[in-house]
């Protein structure tokens, strides 16, 4: 019978050999039980790799499920708030899903793999919920996280690097498109997706060819053509906030792990109105969300720009300086490219309206001396940062 080595606490990704060599800081953490680098070398270098050249990140630990069978579309449509029947083969879409009360369980992406069914990628472990949701449906759900290795290749030169590595037909691949191709004789799937708000691809491969894929990409650097560097979770955290993506567990508590009533969030409260469609077959939480629609807005997660340069980590927010407390900062980052404090903030509405003047009370320390200050905040409706090259097809060749 299968036994496992209890001394190997974290699982090793199929890219481990390379990551271990390049991870100079040996700064590991657990991502879904995989040993994952937070920082390879320095955070600043990794951040600017994403924004100015080409970054590579091991995405293998992301939870992946394969959905097949006659009821696959019915199942997915009942699972998520978006209309999946509109998703064409070879396309990817961002989705969220809710519990019965319309509270968000997780977010992720669905890939229409054509005849091979669908792939659902999620932040958290979802097999239990997927199985619950499959009751009475002719659908098969396979957990395939460990069976597929994935690299995220992101940055302005991502296209040039992949092309140089030998990938063809990338020029016509549009954002949220999927390309099935081959590299050096093995099958590779490429999707034009990512978390950076910039040009980028995710490359999916059988774990047996993981190192071949890694080497093919990094060989571009060896050849002296383009800079390619691995990045860790910390750099990703910076760019995902710049790009306006929310993170379950950081920006909101997922419904399944919420213990105190009212501490979970609906998609509307997270500003995800655009992924909720009532003009589609029934989905879990629809009734609750329809009801929420008829009620005054209680709260919203907003993209909030905080003036000045003091870190507003964990700050309370007020309606006017010294006014009524209306919420708190969730995740935040000092954006090196925008020279601004970018945050996600959970704000309670007053009588259904966004408070007019939002101020943050910031506690900060310099050399262990603590001070407090007030900073004015402004809500941003658009992502803090998004580059036109993100969607430009074909992308520029460097």
């Amino acid at each position, binding site marked *: 019978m299968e036994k496992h080595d209890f001394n190997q606490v974290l699982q090793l990704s199929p890219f481990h050999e390379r990551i271990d060599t390049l991870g100079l800081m040996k700064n590991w953490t657990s991502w879904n039980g995989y040993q994952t680098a937070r920082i390879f070398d320095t955070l600043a270098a990794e951040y600017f790799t994403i924004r100015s050249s080409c970054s590579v990140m091991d995405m293998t630990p992301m939870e992946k499920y394969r959905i097949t069978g006659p009821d696959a579309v*019915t199942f997915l449509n009942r699972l998520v708030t978006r209309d999946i029947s509109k998703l064409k083969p070879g396309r990817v879409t961002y989705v969220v899903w809710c*519990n019965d009360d319309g509270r968000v369980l997780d977010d992720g992406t669905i890939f229409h793999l054509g005849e091979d069914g669908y792939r659902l990628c999620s932040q958290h472990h979802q097999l239990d*919920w997927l199985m*619950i949701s499959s*009751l*009475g449906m002719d659908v098969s759900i396979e957990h395939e996280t460990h069976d597929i290795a994935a690299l995220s290749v992101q940055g302005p030169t991502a296209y040039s690097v992949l092309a140089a590595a030998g990938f063809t037909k990338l020029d016509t691949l549009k954002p949220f498109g999927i390309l099935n191709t081959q590299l050096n004789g093995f099958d590779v799937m490429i999707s034009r997706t990512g978390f950076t708000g910039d040009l980028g691809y995710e490359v999916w491969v059988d774990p047996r060819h993981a190192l071949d894929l890694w080497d093919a990409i990094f060989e571009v650097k060896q050849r002296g053509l383009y800079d390619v560097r691995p990045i860790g979770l910390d750099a990703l955290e910076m760019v995902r906030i710049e790009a306006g993506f929310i993170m379950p567990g950081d920006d909101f508590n997922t419904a399944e792990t919420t213990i105190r009533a009212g501490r979970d969030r609906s998609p509307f409260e997270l500003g995800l109105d655009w992924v909720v469609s009532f003009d589609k077959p*029934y989905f*879990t939480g629809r*009734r609750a969300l329809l009801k929420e629609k008829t009620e005054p807005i209680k709260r919203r997660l907003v993209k909030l720009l905080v003036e000045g340069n003091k870190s507003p980590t964990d700050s309370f927010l007020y309606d006017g300086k010294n006014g009524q407390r209306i919420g708190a900062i969730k995740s935040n980052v000092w954006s090196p490219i925008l020279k601004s404090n970018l945050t996600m903030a959970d704000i309670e509405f007053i009588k259904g309206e966004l408070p007019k003047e939002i101020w943050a009370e910031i506690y900060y320390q310099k050399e262990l001396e603590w001070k407090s200050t007030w900073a004015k905040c402004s809500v941003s409706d658009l992502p803090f940062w998004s580059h036109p090259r993100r969607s430009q097809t074909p992308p520029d060749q460097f």
Partner: protein
Amino acid sequence: MTESKTMIVIGAGHNGLVCATYLAKAGHKVKIFEARSTAGGGVSRHQFATDYYVAGLAHVLHPLNPKIVKELDLVGAGLKKGEAINTISLGHDGRHMTLGMDHVEATGLSVEDAAAYKAFKKEFRSYAKALEPMTMNKPPRLKDMDGKDKLTLAQLGLKLRFGLGAASMREFLRVGGINIYDVLNEIIDDPQLKGAIAADAVLGHHMGPRTPTTVLTYLNRLRGEIYGPQSLPTAGEGNLTMALINAATKAGVEIMTDAKVEKIIIKDAKATGVQLNSGQEYLADMVISNADAKKTFLGFVGSQELDAMFAKRIDTTRTNGTVAKLHFALKKLPNFKGLTEIELKQRLLIAPDMRYLEHAFNHAKYGEYSENPLLEITVPSLADPSLAPKGHHVMSVSAGFAPYNLKAGWDKSSSVFCHKILSLIENYAPGISAQVVASEILTPQDIEQQFNVTGGHWHHGELTIDQSFMMRPIHGAAQYDTPIDGLFLCGAAAHPGGGITGIPGHNAAKRILAMKGGN
């Protein structure tokens, strides 16, 4: 006068008939679709061999709630009172014990036990009475209550605190959640008497006397006694089903038999009608299901129209039946040792003591049937001679602790089981096997098939606390309305559960009528 609506009731069991009649009397156009060829469900004449019948799956009835009888004028519709009968617990050694509503008799029974029985029945009937506000209304929600919910809770509180008084209320709160075994051991010595009482608490349930909540199942059964004594049903004139059909028809209800509903049509999260297995569709403003919750939600509606956890919670309700029904055609009146013909007309029990019942239940837990099961036996042809050819008789047996999921498989085991039951009865009625000309066994699986009840469960689902009151069949669908607009439940799957009471049908109708005014 509210606007007249078209309503469809699925299933012409007694609850469906009661509900439909109330709705029709309120001025609505009501149509009942019944899959079987006769109305009445578990209380309709059932033929099990050429020329032999039983009056129904249910072979002992208590009167319906008098409020329902009166409001639907069932007496006017031909309902006749059945002849009151006692229960006789058969002793292995020929010591038969006769249990009436308040008195008990047996050779050697102590005066203390007889008195304790009387006091016990009185006390427990008072609990059942105190629970009436809860029984005859929709179960109140525990948050976001409406006025009706608050009233129900207030009535319940008053009945408990002042109807019972502080001492009885404390006692009720103490024993309400526990098992009948401990309660009986506190007050009664005679093992046979305890066995006979405990039998009422466990028959039809996946529970033994020691299972906590058997006090509640006992109270559920005792509720019938508030309305009057038990009797044997008849299949002819004056019987309950006929009266219900007459009342329904008179109120304008249209009953369609051999009309099997395949699915409930849902448009934009609203029930708009039904589709029969013939493919034919019928549209309606409301659909009211007398079917069990699994069949209604997972069968007729489909999980894709429901929230995922709701569907899962329906799916995990415990609905596996534990009673097999056996029917025997007899050449002549059976001869039970020590019983006169009049005594034979009573409800007979084989439940010699609580340990016997507990052991019988032990087997059911592991997917086995017991070789020494709890038996409830009647000779229905004594109450209704039309059930068998002249001079012949039928015997009806409910055998407890015959689990729906038999490990060995019912296909292989049902005839063996039938034989074992007969030999067990043979001990009490020597020579009975030789009198049998035909027999039928309905395992829970057969009951599921023939009567369209998931799991073949008497109550459409276990009557445990987690599946009772505002959690029956599950919370979120416990007030007869469901998450699907225009879809309602009116059967035993809903509060307060099974038994031939008509109460779910009554409560559902009241709820539907109130919602139309209120919402």
